[in-house]
């Protein structure tokens, strides 16, 4: 069968790497639709023909569960995101963390806490570091973490909170970033559900099994995600 997967943008690349392995293993095909989790949520509420939803957070899957749109018991955390502070030009100012704390930057980029789960994590981190109030008003806020990454990548922001997965994917020199320790923010739980109206529930369940399996775990780790089990 062909499985229609709605995935949060930040995970779509990783998913594309998992897909061939899954297809080879099961013979099922994946058709990937990427968008922000908020859009996907709205679409699903209005009848979007997806089988699976891989959100960038836990809130939206929970909301869908409360609305009874998911296959009961299907919700689980398929990956845990890692936040990183990226400062592409360390040669001049030293480490990213120092530059943040010493205000050695022109413009900080973060995800918008309202719309991007990585934004929430960035906010919590800044609050813990006691920098939030000083920086919040000037920060450029990306709609999602992809946009936040572009702010930094294009040089318009010289420092920013992005996803570790992006940095790895873009093959950024680790000297340029600081992976934020897990204790600085609530874990970024990326949860998925199978939709109740899916006509391919069997195949969808096989996909969820596959993503929990060792082959996928390998890819997830390489891509910069943690696993739920590892967190505990």
């Amino acid at each position, binding site marked *: 069968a062909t499985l229609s997967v*709605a995935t949060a943008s930040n995970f779509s*690349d990783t998913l594309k790497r998992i897909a061939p392995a899954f297809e080879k293993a099961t013979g099922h095909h994946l058709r990937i*639709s*990427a968008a922000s989790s908020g859009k996907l949520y709205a*679409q699903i509420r*209005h*009848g*979007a023909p997806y089988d699976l939803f891989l959100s960038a957070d836990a809130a939206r899957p929970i909301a869908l569960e409360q609305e009874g749109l998911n296959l009961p018991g299907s919700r689980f955390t398929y990956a845990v995101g890692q936040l990183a502070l990226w400062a592409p030009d360390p040669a001049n100012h030293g480490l990213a963390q120092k530059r943040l704390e010493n205000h050695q930057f022109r413009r900080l980029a973060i995800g918008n806490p309202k719309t991007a789960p990585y934004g929430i994590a960035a906010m919590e981190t800044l609050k813990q570091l006691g920098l939030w109030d000083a920086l919040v008003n000037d920060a450029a806020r990306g709609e999602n973490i992809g*946009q936040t990454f572009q702010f930094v*990548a294009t040089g318009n922001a010289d420092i920013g909170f992005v996803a570790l997965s992006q940095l790895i994917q873009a093959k950024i020199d680790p000297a340029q970033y600081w992976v934020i320790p897990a204790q600085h923010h609530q874990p970024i739980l990326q949860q998925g559900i199978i939709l109740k109206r899916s006509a391919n529930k069997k195949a969808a369940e096989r996909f969820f099994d596959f993503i929990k399996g060792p082959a996928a775990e390998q890819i997830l780790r390489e891509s910069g995600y943690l696993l739920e089990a590892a967190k505990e």
Partner: protein
Amino acid sequence: MMGPDDLSALWVTLRLAMISTLLLLMVGIPLAWWLARSKSRIRTLVETLIALPLVLPPTVLGFYLLIALSPSGFIGGFWQAMGGKGLAFTFTGLVIGSVLYSMPFVVQPLQNAFAAIDRRTLEAAATLRASPLNCFFTVVLPLARPGLITASTLGFAHTLGEFGVVLMIGGNIPGETQVLSIAIYDHVESLAYGQAHLLSAGLLLFSFLILYLVYRMNGTHFLHREQR
């Protein structure tokens, strides 16, 4: 290089832009004519309503369209009552959304072009046995050619670049509702800048050629001829 998804996105995009432009003209031309000639009270109201979707951010407009297109919604309900299947997340739904969103760019230039036509020229045509419909095709449309070109190019280009509405009500389904603009967006989002540049350059080049040819042809219009 271009993946198969990109190719199918290209195909969906071209189909969407062409069908939408065609529909926009089919709906927009009579509408603009009515707006240009009517003395009705509700004319201004209709003019305003047509321009209104513009002020909403496309994704938000898409959001409301999604609601309207859903089986319990205004348009979707009607559609289903007529025996149609769901509209959201289908190509048909995309067409509806694009047409609505690009309508003002088509109607307003046409309306201006129609309004500028001297009534006496139409009277001359009437005394020369041209029925109103015949006159419309043989006199009004040729005289409104610059407006028609502007309407078509703005409509076409806007549909090509259209994105927010399409993403929302189309759902980014490859081969069905994933258009080139979304594909490029995806590439940018997923840091595949190389591919994004490639696709953007292709789209720009293609559009440049089309627009250039169209404007070039329009340059030979009688209005640009030496007058006295």
